[in-house]
């Protein structure tokens, strides 16, 4: 163990982290974004990105019908092309987990995990009892991944012990049954230093994945933020030998955006992370663009949105 578990020790550890060179991070992310990925590499990247998508619907207006339609799309993103891989997971609100799990099992998507957003998503403003119950509910309904939000108010006011304890409690509830993804809402953490601190905090508390945002706040998964988080998982691996996953979510809408993320992963954390078990992309409209780019590569002519499903 790197820390002894006391809040004082945790604080000392986080304060001792080197600050992020903001200009350097921005420049590095911008430079990596200029990489040109074409032809066979592009085809590979598109399929990899599809298999990494956490196909998400998090609307107040979600209906069982919409969730089922999303499940069908997750299993077979392009019904006309069987060579398209399935997506990484389905990500829904707590009360839709059961519907999603049953539908996936029914239509041949047994291997696709259902992720539930939890702990009073998206704000995280609830008592720990509610958060525990929220998580337990999702697990009972069949969720195998829990996307929890941290209490940003506590983090920003320096009560990192509280944030740490909450993650630990939720992790204990998840146990071996589910993967835990911890959402920072980087748009509300403001600085890259805070992102780095939150990353280590979550990893030390037992997160399996660290995730940028809820998708409800702008800015969301910007390239420099993802870069800082990837550096954190890389360094944490060097320190402990444990591989933590990263999930950018929010604002990744085009194939170009997704491929830029893959370049970041490869150049920062390394090729081990180019795997759906260690890198996911939270998105909804991105999948259609990936499918259209895939059609373009296959047929040689530009695709139309009329040939992919609306969700």
């Amino acid at each position, binding site marked *: 163990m790197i820390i002894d578990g006391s809040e004082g020790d945790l604080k000392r550890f986080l304060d001792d982290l080197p600050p992020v060179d903001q200009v350097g991070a921005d420049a590095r992310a911008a430079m990596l974004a200029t990489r040109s990925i074409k032809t066979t590499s592009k085809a590979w990247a598109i399929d990899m990105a599809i298999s990494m998508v956490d196909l998400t619907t998090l609307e107040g207006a979600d209906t069982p019908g919409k969730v089922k339609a999303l499940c069908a799309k997750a299993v077979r993103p392009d019904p006309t092309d069987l060579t398209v891989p399935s997506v990484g997971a389905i990500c829904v609100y707590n009360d839709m987990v059961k519907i999603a799990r049953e539908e996936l099992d029914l239509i041949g998507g047994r291997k696709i995990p259902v992720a539930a957003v939890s702990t009073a998503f998206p704000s995280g403003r609830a008592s720990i009892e509610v958060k525990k119950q929220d998580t337990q509910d999702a697990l009972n309904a069949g969720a195998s991944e829990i996307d929890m939000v941290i209490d940003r108010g506590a983090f920003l006011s320096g009560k990192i012990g509280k944030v740490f304890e909450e993650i630990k409690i939720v992790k204990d509830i998840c146990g071996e049954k589910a993967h835990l993804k911890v959402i920072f809402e980087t748009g509300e953490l403001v600085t890259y230093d805070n992102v780095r601190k939150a990353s280590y905090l979550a990893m030390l508390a037992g997160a399996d994945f660290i995730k940028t945002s809820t998708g409800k706040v702008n800015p969301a998964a910007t390239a420099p933020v993802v870069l800082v988080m990837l550096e954190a998982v890389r360094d944490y691996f060097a320190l402990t030998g444990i591989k933590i996953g990263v999930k950018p979510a929010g604002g990744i809408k085009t194939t170009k955006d997704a491929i830029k993320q893959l370049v970041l992963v490869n150049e920062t954390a390394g090729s081990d992370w180019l795997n759906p078990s260690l890198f996911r992309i939270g998105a909804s409209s991105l999948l259609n663009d990936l499918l259209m780019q895939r059609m373009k590569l296959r047929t*040689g*002519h*530009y*695709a*139309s*949105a*009329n*040939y992919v499903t609306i969700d």
Partner: protein
Amino acid sequence: MSRIDVNKTYKLFIGGAFPRSESGRVYEVKGANKKFIANPAMASRKDLRESVVAAKSAFHGWANATAFNRGQVLYRIAEIMQGRSEQFVEEICALEGVSNKAAKSQVEETIDTWVWYSGWCDKLSAISGSLNQVSGPFYNFTTPEPLGVVAVFAENKPSLLGAVRTLAPVISSGNTAILIASEKYPLPAITLSEVLATSDLPSGVVNVLTGKISELASWIASHMEIDGVDVAGLSKSEEEELKLHGADNLKRVFRFTNRNHPERILSFMEQKTVWHPIGI
């Protein structure tokens, strides 16, 4: 000391902005007297792709604007063109080598064309729609609806009128358009794009590309998002090839012989039929 000339950079018109070609290429345009006139942008397939994205995203808003509103915008284009007549006349004279008088009458006819099509916007369902007789307690309507994204190849000559004659009917019904300017006489189309940018026309409804027709035509033909093409500016053989490549997505390809006619509008529309129970 003599003043240094401020020369114009001729650019594309995509999504309401005036970018250079993504490829960075230009080509030379010569006047009727064989002297150099301008270096307009030579659009690449990626510029075309961007135009289609812009046109597609503008479609919903433009198609759902009221016909009356579309008519007003088209009339506004005529108003703004009137104010820039001189520039059009100059360009037509230099390129086509026609007299000042002929150029002037071409510009006037073009402005009248906008006015003519602006009047058609809210009258289309009157001449093409119908209330159908059905054996049941239903109202059954058929009304024309815009097709989507339409590419138009402007005629070479008359350079300005040839562009507007193909463009105006397409957008009057609510389609969004990509205008491929005449390769030989592109300047009036470029100036037209500057008029469109200041005429209340929403961004992306019209996108103007200049460049090599032979390079762009095959990409337009195979692009699945382009629903219709007016091939006025293409040769017979180019038209045949375009039809061949466009067969995959059932592209509507037309060449019109009459000058101004509602057929030019209605060809790029689809008939929608709606059933509505009587008494509810």
